[in-house]
């Protein structure tokens, strides 16, 4: 995206002047007629599409872009049905406007599936309008016309008109009835399923100002916001006069905020943790001054968590299964265990991990007595739009939210506390402010992937099939009522519905540490424990894991017909077979080298991965290759989905290897990359991606390829050396990548 484009999206008024004429389709797919108005340069065919006289087709991307590629894939859906040549397309971000675009967010791998029907209709409706205009211009019936590469052609006469010449007339035709607009069949796609370069690739390669951290507005000042290292504490006093006297510092003050550990509650909370704001003339002056800041903290409302104690409590709880609360139970799992031919019992654990997206949080806010504007890389700008007026006591229409590219999301930008901090500081200063979190702020004041402990028992029958399944979920809780985010067992179909006897129970242990969504929430730990433990059971029964897993999936069955969130065993078996075939599953390997398989269904995606791993005598692991077979339905952008999957493998390996957040007295101990290592290039495996064309509607690709990675590697380690790893990260078990 060019600087010109970012300017366009940073200025809502300008965007509306540019494109706000003609006809608009609302997010619900309903058609809304707005005043048609001649315009010299551009004609809007909907709230998403504008065609300029010079042939540029501007398509709006409605959802936040944080690296998942939706600024390319969503406009591609429109361009496909519009029959626009992709080389004519310029992508811009739409404004944040619930009336026009519905809920605008990036999360749950939902952008593509939620927009799929709507955006196809947007493109197809605009195409129908262009056809009508062309039919009038040429004096022929629309049935004789065809479209391709941004042109309408009348085959019989050989006449052809570009969209650019038709757009103004098209924007005035009466809107076709919704049921008269046909959508393409997948075999008619010219663009979808192809490899298309990310719409922002050239801008990124040239260092253009694309990201939240890059936003500047006139007269802007810069702020650091310092919170209590004991999570949830509050400042009583600070050496504010000394700080204010520092070079470059404009002001320093305490914000009362809401004490207590941060609550991950996107829809309802505008919680700003108490802290000290240092406002300065540039970022460095604020960062330099904070080194001299001395604060007396009240730690009474703060967390006193200790991660060693949490782990010990979990271990103790695992020994008291009889005290656990039963969640669901079918048959008699305990008796079935006794009756089983072979059985296994194991305790799996996962530590807290941080998001560590490369761009630390920042936000620019410009708040006056009458209005507020914020520029944010939030994954949930719609939530800011709804909640910020309340925080600032301004009417809803006085608040404008600009959605700006984020340097990585992974769930971290689902919350908006950095926006609310910036807004409060700007309101107090009466100046536009950029709040910039340091890396240390970003890690210490994260909400983490919850630590989680899964105690499992299973049995295998004479016939070699899973016959008993017991799962004990041990999760942190702030109130002893419900588990913190990430700890609640979610009812699911597999493997439970394939086991005649199962029993799921849970125990809560105290933990105040904030937790929240981290790439593939729940699944990122469940996949590891479940797929590792099923492999343990297969091994106990003397069975090959692929065969055991395929048998367990059993007959073809979609657990809930038509529901993309329900596992489809045919698709599951399809990806398992494809990944195993690609990896030549079953081949013999030298001593110390093994293949491991894992399958997991999450975020509506069926993904199988096979890892080839060597284990050295000193327990150093080398992950050589990972073969991935993924079924996320219709592929939108093949290059984009492959990139997401390659990245999920690397990211999954990164977290699996050596990432853990430890806590003492409520303080986060790892706050930068020296103590919280991300995987570096020399450790990255070769990744081989295969997309399975199953004919289903598209689902998201940002998350589902991450969960199978850790168990695939763990199962490969077992195959290589016979040792079973039951801890995330693997470094806790003494295995280093």
């Amino acid at each position: 995206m060019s600087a010109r484009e970012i300017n366009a999206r940073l200025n809502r008024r300008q965007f509306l002047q540019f494109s706000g004429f003609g006809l608009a389709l609302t997010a619900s797919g309903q058609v809304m007629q707005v005043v048609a108005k001649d315009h010299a340069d551009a004609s809007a065919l909907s709230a998403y599409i504008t065609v300029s006289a010079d042939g540029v087709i501007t398509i709006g991307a409605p959802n936040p872009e944080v690296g998942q590629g939706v600024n390319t894939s969503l406009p591609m859906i429109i361009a496909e049905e519009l029959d626009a040549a992709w080389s004519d397309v310029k992508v811009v971000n739409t404004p944040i406007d619930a009336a026009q675009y519905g809920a605008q967010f990036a999360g749950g791998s939902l952008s593509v599936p939620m927009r799929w029907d709507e955006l196809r209709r947007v493109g197809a409706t605009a195409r129908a309008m262009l056809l009508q205009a062309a039919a009038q211009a040429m004096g022929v019936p629309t049935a004789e016309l065809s479209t391709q590469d941004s042109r309408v052609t009348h085959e019989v006469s050989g006449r052809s008109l570009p969209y650019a010449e038709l757009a103004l007339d098209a924007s005035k035709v009466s809107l076709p009835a919704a049921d008269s607009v046909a959508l393409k069949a997948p075999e008619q796609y010219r663009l979808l399923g192809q490899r298309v370069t990310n719409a922002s690739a050239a801008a990124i390669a040239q260092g253009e100002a694309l990201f939240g951290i890059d936003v500047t507005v006139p007269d802007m000042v810069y702020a650091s916001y310092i919170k209590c290292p004991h999570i949830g504490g509050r400042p009583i006093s600070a050496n504010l006069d000394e700080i204010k006297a520092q070079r470059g510092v404009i002001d320093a003050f305490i914000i009362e905020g809401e004490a207590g550990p941060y609550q991950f509650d996107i829809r309802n909370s505008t919680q700003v943790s108490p802290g000290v704001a240092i406002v300065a003339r540039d970022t460095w002056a604020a960062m330099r001054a904070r080194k001299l800041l001395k604060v007396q903290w009240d730690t009474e409302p703060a967390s006193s968590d200790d991660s060693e104690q949490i782990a010990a409590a979990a271990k103790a709880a695992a020994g008291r299964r009889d005290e656990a609360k039963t969640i669901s139970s079918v048959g008699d799992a305990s008796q079935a265990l006794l009756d089983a031919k072979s059985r296994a019992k194991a305790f799996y654990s996962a530590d807290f991990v941080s998001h560590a997206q490369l761009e630390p949080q920042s936000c620019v806010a410009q708040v006056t007595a009458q209005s507020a504007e914020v520029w944010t890389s939030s994954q949930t700008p719609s939530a800011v739009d709804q909640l910020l007026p309340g925080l600032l006591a301004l009417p809803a229409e006085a608040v404008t939210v600009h959605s700006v590219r984020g340097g990585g999301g992974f769930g971290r930008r689902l919350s908006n506390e950095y926006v609310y901090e910036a807004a409060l500081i700007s309101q107090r200063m009466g100046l536009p402010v950029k709040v910039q979190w340091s890396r240390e702020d970003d890690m210490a004041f994260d909400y983490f992937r919850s630590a989680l402990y899964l105690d499992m028992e299973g049995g295998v029958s004479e016939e070699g099939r899973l016959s008993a399944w017991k799962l004990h979920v041990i999760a942190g809780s702030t109130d002893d009522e419900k588990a913190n985010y990430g700890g609640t067992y979610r009812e699911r179909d597999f493997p439970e519905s394939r086991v005649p006897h199962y029993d799921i129970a849970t125990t809560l242990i105290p933990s105040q540490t904030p937790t929240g969504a981290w790439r593939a929430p729940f699944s990122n730990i469940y996949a590891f424990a479940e797929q590792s433990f099923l492999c343990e059971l297969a091994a106990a029964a003397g069975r090959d894991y692929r065969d055991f897993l395929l048998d367990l999936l059993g007959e073809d069955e979609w657990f809930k017909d038509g529901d993309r969130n329900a596992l489809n065993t045919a698709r599951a078996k399809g990806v398992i077979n494809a990944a195993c075939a690609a990896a030549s599953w079953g081949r013999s390997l030298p001593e110390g080298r093994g293949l491991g398989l894992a399958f997991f269904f999450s975020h509506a995606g069926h993904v199988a991965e096979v890892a080839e791993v060597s284990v050295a005598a000193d327990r150093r692991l080398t992950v050589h290759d990972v073969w991935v077979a993924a079924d996320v339905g219709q592929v939108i952008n093949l290059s984009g989905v492959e990139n997401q999957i390659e990245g999920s493998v690397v990211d999954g390996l990164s977290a699996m290897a050596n990432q853990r957040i430890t806590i003492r007295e409520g303080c986060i101990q790892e706050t930068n990359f020296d103590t919280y290592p991300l995987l570096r290039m020399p450790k990255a495996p070769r990744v081989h991606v295969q997309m399975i064309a199953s004919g289903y509607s598209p689902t998201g690709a940002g998350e589902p390829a991450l969960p199978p990675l850790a168990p695939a590697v763990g199962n490969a380690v077992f195959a290589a050396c016979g040792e079973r790893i039951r801890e995330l990260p693997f470094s806790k078990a003494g295995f280093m990548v």
Partner: protein
Amino acid sequence: MPFNVTINGELTDVSHIDPDTPLLWALRDHLGLVGTKYGCGIAQCGACTVWLDGDPARACQLPLGQLEGRSITTLEGLAGDALHPVQQAWVEHDVAQCGYCQAGQIMSAAALLARNPAPSDDEIDRAMAGNICRCGTYVRIRKAIKSASSTIQGGVAFFDPGDFDSTASLVDSKEVTS
């Protein structure tokens, strides 16, 4: 009194900026060059990689006051009339996901190829080990560096961004292994 640093080939007076300011923040907050990114502030992530007299360096660790008479190149200064072959390869291989670390990745890669136009796989891995990518684009970065290496060795003309066609990378779907 003027205090001059050469930035992207232009002699630039930076005397209005506090001399203890790291180059990173001088570029970003005062000189309008925001391509160089803040990631960690302790030379661990590589997002702020620039060239100091042609060698890669972490801008978060370079106080401006120590740079008098030195020459700095940022990502914005890498292209001439056309994109640098490394930038071109980054586009052709569709490397970026979020894109935040890529300025540093590109500056490290271009520095590597300037020293060693035909690096081995191991040399690429070693030269790039200082640059973190949470999105996990390493697989594509390796390919892009190989591709840029071929371009440089083959003397292929620099790529003109004005001619960039976003469909140029469309290829047959036959190659499913990446």
